């Protein structure tokens, strides 16, 4: 211990700390997004039209799950309300950008003169995300003060409140009926680009000083507090960013599908996206991506068996409800044998570099 521990000296040691940290996590995010790009391009190039619609659902789920990971993965608090933000994003652009002629049919009595507003899709998207941000900031103020189960319950309450507003404010949202006529301005390539961007954002946040400090305070609140880390503020930041990405998923969904209804943004979506994140592993962005890929493909496969198939000349009976059962079984098995999810604690690029280092030895 001949070196000084206190006095500051210039250091000429080659440091693994800091240098190109931003570039490394940018690169890491792109590596994580690579499987998504490959699958997306394969679907665009070879898949029949029927798969386009499946791919849309998968990409929307991907953006939601990555958004969810930003809050859940870093703060370690379960969120059961993120579909509220997806819904607000989708209904936001629906109300703001649907052509006037369509509105005359669907929401002629909209309040605040919204029946006579027709913004271009980009402006509508920005405004819708602004509404998401305000809602997230208000709900986040409450949630960031709580921790654990209490925060989760509040997120659930938010979902229920937003859903009942969609259902009951029929003049503005058409209630239980489908809201149609939203301009279809998003195609699959645009969805692919958005997915990559969102994955990179999530990775940059995770590796940023905010993300790191939030992960630390989730792990040991006392120690984090002793270093002056403000866990509440960090939880709020993660919550708002997470909400914005979920809102973006809603915007893109509305602009792709053209028709939305409240039940799309409720418990079924909550459970499927939560299952994807937990199955893949919520500690990493890679886990979010993995969970979406595995469950999207797996569920589609099960659905095809569900309707009855012929294997080696034997006609299997219809097995309605199999997908639900299989989903449950897969999650239970995964949690029993890999509680951290498929991906564990390492991002894809970290797993790869570890693999190559082992080979080099």
């Amino acid at each position, binding site marked *: 211990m001949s070196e000084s521990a206190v006095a500051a000296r210039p*250091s000429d040691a080659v440091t*693994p700390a800091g240098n190109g940290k931003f570039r490394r996590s940018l690169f890491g995010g792109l590596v994580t997004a690579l499987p998504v790009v490959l699958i997306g391009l394969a679907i665009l190039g070879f898949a029949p039209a029927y798969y386009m619609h499946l791919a849309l659902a998968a990409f929307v789920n991907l953006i939601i799950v990555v958004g969810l990971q930003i809050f859940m993965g870093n703060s370690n608090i379960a969120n059961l309300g993120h579909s509220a933000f997806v819904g607000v994003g989708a209904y936001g652009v629906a109300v703001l950008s649907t052509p006037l002629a369509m509105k005359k049919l669907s929401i002629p009595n909209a309040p605040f003169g919204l029946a006579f507003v027709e913004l271009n899709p980009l402006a509508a998207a920005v405004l819708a995300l602004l509404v998401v941000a305000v809602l997230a900031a208000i709900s986040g103020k409450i949630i960031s003060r709580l921790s654990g189960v209490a925060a989760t319950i509040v997120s659930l309450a938010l979902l229920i409140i937003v859903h009942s507003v969609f259902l009951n404010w029929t003049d503005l949202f058409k209630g239980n009926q489908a809201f149609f006529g939203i301009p279809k301005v998003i195609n699959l390539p645009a969805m692919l680009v958005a997915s990559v961007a969102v994955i990179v954002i999530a990775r940059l946040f995770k590796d940023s000083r905010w993300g790191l400090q939030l992960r630390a305070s989730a792990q040991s609140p006392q*120690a984090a507090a002793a270093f*002056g880390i403000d866990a509440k503020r960090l939880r709020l930041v993660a919550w708002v960013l997470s909400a914005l990405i979920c809102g973006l998923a809603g915007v893109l969904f509305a602009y792709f599908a053209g028709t939305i209804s409240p039940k799309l943004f409720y418990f079924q979506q909550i459970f499927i996206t939560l299952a994807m994140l937990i199955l893949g592993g919520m500690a990493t962005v890679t886990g979010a991506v993995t969970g979406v890929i595995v469950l999207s493909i797996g569920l589609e496969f099960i659905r095809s068996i569900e309707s009855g198939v012929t294997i080696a000349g034997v006609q299997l009976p219809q097995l309605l409800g199999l997908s639900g059962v299989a989903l449950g079984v897969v999650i239970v098995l995964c949690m029993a044998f890999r509680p951290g999810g498929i991906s564990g604690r390492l991002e894809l690029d970290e797993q790869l570099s570890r693999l190559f280092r082992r080979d080099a030895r």
Partner: protein
Amino acid sequence: MLTVENLSVRYGAVAAVRELSLSIEPGQLVALLGPNGAGKSSTINALTGLVAPMAGRIVFDGKDISRTRTEDRIRRGLTSTPEGRHIFANLTVGENLRLGAATRRDPKGVRADIDRFLALFPVLSERYAQAAGTLSGGEQQMLAISRSLMSRPKLLLLDEPSLGLAPRIVAQIFDFIGQLKAEGMTLLVVEQNATQALRFADRVYVVSSGALRYDGPPAKLADEHGLLNLYLGG
């Protein structure tokens, strides 16, 4: 450097610290000794702002900091190493060090400091990208102290650095603490392990049941075996 006047900490009806007064001069190593539950950790938490004191004044570097936030106290140069190490076990050694500098805004200086601790403790350098939970207990304590030093404190509060460590490792930890003192660092070491804490101490406070029982040089405390027996159980 630090003056504490009549500090009282209560958790509901329970008084953890009662009218405690102590002072630390620059460059000193002050030991705060006492048995389990004496109020030592509560004192540290009040000094760092993690709990709000019921009454009393804390003056650091000539400023009353009794009501300031933890973050501001760290910026002024008052940092603690929490009891039981509280390493972020799932984060890497490097990330742990970075977190110690959470209040700093000079990335270059932070990087240089990280390099210094890596040179000082080669094991931290070897395990730089590994989870800190894979370190041994003694290595974790070295990391915990290094992590606290990342905020460049003027006064470092160490809460039971010997907790759960083998005697040989404890001696190494205190060698390092002695080295910090030799380099001019001011330290307050809270301990149950009197023998090690007294090796470098300039002044000793003994607390029991939240109140001060002894204040003076370590030599006198060592003479008065009765006191040691009474309050530290040997």
